[in-house]
C-alpha cells in the first residue's frame, strides 16, 4: 500500500515536472524542475528494486550534472527569459499533439498488454550484485566507459582553453 501511494505521488511529480521543464520560460526554473524530476525518478528506481542505481542517480544526475547545468546558466547569465523568440509559431501545437499521440498509442497498444513482473531475489539491486555482474559479464563496456569519460575530460578541457 505504501508502494502504491509512493508510486502515484512520484508519478504525479514526474508528470508535472516534465511538463515544467519544457514549458517554463526561465531556464533556471526549468533546471530546478528537472532536478525534482530526477528525485522522483530515484524514488521510482527504489520501488523497482534498484537501490544502487537510485543513489547513483542522485549523486551523478541530481548532484553533478544538474549542478553543471546551473553553473553554465548562471555564468552565461541566461536567466533573462525574453531572449528566445520562436520563429515558426505552428510548431508548438503540432509537436505537443504528436507527442501526446505517441504516448497514447504506445501505452495503449503495446505497454498495456505486457506481462507481470517476475519474482526476483531481495538483494537484486544491491551493490554486491550489480558489481558482480559489472565486473564479470559487463567488464568490457565498463572499461570502455572509463575511456569515454577520459575522452570527455580531455575534450572539455581543450574546449575551455582560450589559446592553444
Amino acid at each position, binding site marked *: 500500500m505504501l508502494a502504491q501511494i509512493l*508510486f502515484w505521488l512520484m508519478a504525479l511529480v514526474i508528470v508535472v515536472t516534465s511538463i515544467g*521543464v519544457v514549458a517554463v520560460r526561465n531556464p533556471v526554473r526549468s533546471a530546478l524542475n528537472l532536478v525534482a524530476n530526477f528525485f522522483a525518478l530515484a524514488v521510482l528506481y527504489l520501488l*523497482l528494486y534498484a537501490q544502487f542505481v537510485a543513489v547513483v542517480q542522485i549523486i551523478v544526475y541530481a548532484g553533478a550534472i544538474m549542478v553543471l547545468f546551473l553553473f553554465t546558466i548562471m555564468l552565461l547569465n*541566461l536567466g533573462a527569459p525574453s531572449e528566445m523568440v520562436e520563429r515558426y509559431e505552428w510548431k508548438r501545437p503540432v509537436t505537443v499533439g504528436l*507527442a501526446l499521440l505517441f504516448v497514447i498509442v504506445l501505452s495503449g497498444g503495446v505497454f498495456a498488454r505486457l506481462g507481470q513482473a517476475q519474482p526476483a531475489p531481495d538483494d537484486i539491486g544491491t551493490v554486491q550484485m*550489480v558489481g558482480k555482474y559489472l565486473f564479470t559479464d559487463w567488464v568490457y563496456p565498463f572499461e570502455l566507459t572509463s575511456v569515454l569519460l577520459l575522452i570527455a575530460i580531455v575534450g572539455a578541457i581543450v574546449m575551455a582553453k582560450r589559446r592553444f
Partner: protein
Amino acid sequence: MEAIPVSWYLMLSAFMFAMGVTGVVIRRNPIVIFMCIELMLNAANLAFLAFARQQAQLGAQVAGQVYTILVMAVAAAEVAIGLGIIVAIYRLRDTINVDEMNLLKF
C-alpha cells in the same frame, strides 16, 4: 512491491520521452534543449529498469541495472562536452539562440 504493474512504469517513461522530444523541437535555448535530452535519457533508464523486472533470468534482471549505470556515465560525459560547446559558441557569437546557428562555418 509486486502491486504495481510494470506497464505503468513504461507509460510514465513514454510520457517523459515524449515531453523530452517536444522540448527539443519547441525550445530555442540550447541549454534547455540539452536538459530535454537528459529527460529523454532518463526516460530510457526508467524503461530499462522496468523491463529488467520482467526478465526471467537473474543475469538479465541485473543487466537492466548495469545498462542504466552505463547510460548515466555516457550522459555525464555528453553533458560535459555539450556544455563546453555551448560556452565556446557563446564566447564566439555572444548569443546562443539556436535559430541563429545556421552557418556551417563562421
